[in-house]
């Protein structure tokens, strides 16, 4: 049993590593604090019959220990911030567009995900876009390519969660958010909605189907051929 689900994205490992880093800091702090909390209960028990010392904690030799602890906490906080900062920028900003990228649109609706493929011209928002709105149709993406998606919602707030890629992003009605992922391993991965959106919130599930570039090419070709009518009206 592993703690996290299998990581299949390029940046997922960084998030997992960040977890272990914070866990080390948290565990050290936890065990030291637990000792500081529990040890005096035995050492200074009233059963020993000793009168308590009168320490107000206003003298430097007493409060310096708290200062050290707080400085250590602050330092470890900033170490965490420093380490995570690059990852955050990496995930939250869409990479420069290159030729291998795939652009898709993802539209959340009560209660399914609608996928928009860019059509033969590879550009979203043109008339040859193909909209797939079906519970049975998954989002096909090629592996080892940056998949840049525009996330929207038509009704209420939803949240796009791809646990295997460690990616989550809310879909707000009236806004378009650009995010990206790059899956490195072929497979079928859950997409779930993590923002409560109504009665069938728990059924709002679809999949990302990560395929080899050849399979993906095959899929898009057949998709665009089937939707030729739309394309020709351009």
């Amino acid at each position, binding site marked *: 049993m592993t703690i996290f689900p299998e990581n299949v994205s390029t940046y997922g490992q960084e998030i997992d590593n960040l977890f272990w880093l914070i866990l080390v800091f948290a565990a050290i702090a936890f065990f030291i604090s637990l000792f500081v909390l*529990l040890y005096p*209960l035995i050492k200074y028990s009233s059963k020993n019959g000793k009168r308590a*010392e009168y320490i107000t904690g206003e003298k430097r030799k007493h409060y310096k220990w708290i200062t050290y602890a707080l400085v250590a906490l602050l330092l470890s906080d900033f170490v965490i911030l420093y380490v995570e900062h690059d990852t955050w920028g990496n995930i939250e900003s869409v990479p420069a567009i290159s030729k291998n990228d795939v652009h898709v649109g993802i539209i959340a609706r009560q209660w399914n995900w609608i996928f928009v493929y860019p059509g033969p011209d590879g550009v979203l928002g043109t008339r040859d876009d193909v909209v797939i709105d079906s519970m049975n149709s998954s989002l096909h993406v090629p592996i080892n390519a940056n998949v840049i998606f525009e996330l929207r919602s038509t009704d209420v*707030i939803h949240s796009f969660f791809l646990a295997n890629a460690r990616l989550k*992003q809310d879909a*707000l009605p009236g806004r378009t958010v650009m995010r990206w992922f790059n899956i490195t391993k072929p497979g079928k991965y859950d997409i779930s909605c*993590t923002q*409560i959106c109504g009665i069938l919130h728990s059924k709002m599930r679809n999949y990302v189907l990560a395929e080899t570039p050849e399979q993906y090419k095959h899929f898009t070709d057949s998709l665009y051929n089937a939707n030729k009518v739309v394309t020709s009206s351009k």
Partner: protein
Amino acid sequence: MENLHQNKSFWSKYVFSTDHKTIGTQYMIMGMIMAGVGGYLAYVFRYNLAFPGKSIPFYGMLGPQAYNAFVTIHGMIMVFWVGMPVLLSALGNYLIPIMIGSDDMAFPTVNMLSFWIFAVSALVLIASFFVPGGAFGGGWTMYPPFSAQGYVNHNPNFFTALFSGTSLLILAVALELVAMLMGGINFLVTTINKRAKGMTPWRIPVIIWFINIAAVIFMFSVGPLVAGAFMLLFDNVLGTGFYDPHRGGDPMLWEHLFWFFGHPEVYVLLLPSLGVLAEIVPVFSRKPLFAYKTVIYLALLSAFLSVLVWAHHQFVAGIDPRMATFFSIGTILISIPFAGIFLSYMATLWGGSIRMKLPMLWAIGFIGLFLVGGLTGLFLGSNTFDIYAHDTYFVVAHFHYTLFPDIFFGFFAAFYYWFPKFTGKELNAKLGKWHFWLTFIFFNGVFFLLFFNGLAGQHRRINDYSSFSLISREPYQTFEQIATVCAIGLMLSQFIFLYNFITSFRKGKKAVKNPWESTTLEWQSDSPPPHGNFNPYPEVHRGAYDYSLPEAKEDFTPQNVPNVN
């Protein structure tokens, strides 16, 4: 002047009373009843999570709509109708006048009104279950447009929209906030104006400081939400478009408003129970509170920082990434004052003469559990890891590890500590120990394993995980079942408390005036305190924590003792 009340009828003595002790008790009882309701809701949906699709004993089948409503109202009740009344109002009302050596609150009638508005708000909330369509089921955060669809989707009829679960919930919350605001005004004025002679600011016990700081945080963060709640109500019943993106509004506005209040609210709940610890730890360590002034300065600092961290609830909501970094820094900064406060309590233990009585047991349990809650906050405060952990069971476990010790351990610590003062009776210590250990063990049983569910990617507010191959597998379903069994155990162990409460109240041993040998003023009054609290009124000569003064014979010197020898 108020002494006339002594001879009043049952109604004016126990129901429409203006006595701060009676009102405090009313708040406490009301909070306990609501905790029962919230606990029942939790039992129903936890049972459903462990055994999906099975009929639930004492409820029946739970559909997705009811599940959503139960989760939502459970959160609402525990924060607004249990945490707020019990920690802020009950403790504040009971303790502020008596601990500063006064007879009553500054505005007793406002105080009574505050309680009755609160009682009405609780009724409105319960009523929302019984309107057509049931209670609101969109999470306690009530994000629009989901919470603003009363007008658009269902029926553009004013009364249908007004008597919908959504509108009633907004109304109930608004009423509750008004009640708490009235209470807050009272707390501040009482503490500033009605202190006994000699009770200078640096002699006020920490709990009184903390309750007042909490009242200030509450007053300054709740205002925009009150306006925002009315806007949401109008969106629902009149069809305005304040939060409707198709009508020029912005749902993000509510998110900001809600969390601008919602995060400081956490500290509003936390500070009174930290105050309880600040009273209990020195008494049972027989030692002055470590760095009293610093503790108060730290609390003031945290009050200031508390309004600068709210957007860490919105890291994945599509806010500007640079803004997220700012709020991430704010979040880790606010851990510093609270860590400082907890460290000062731990430092108080060192060199003391510790008596492990019941209140102390709860206090130590509180600190131990909150340690887990606080440190898991490090993971979530980091905006990058929050991308993954947001809205998963990791968050659920995290905030239960902070709020459960805060509300329940804090309350029980206070209850076991002040019960002899409230009633003049002693509690059964043996039953109290059973209550503590069962609560402590079962609580960990409920929430510790859920951290792992969260890390496996299990997200919140889902009534049936069978659609998700990733998380509906073992061992996570077993973890859910363990959590549910422990949750039922946790609720059953509260009956020990109830039994202890009632039997001790009726025929417990008579308590002495100052059973814990404490220094603060309330213990210098009779148990239970008479109407008007003191006779004669005390004069304060020293700080609140003069334990084990080297020059004193006794190891405690009450605040109203002029000279040590």
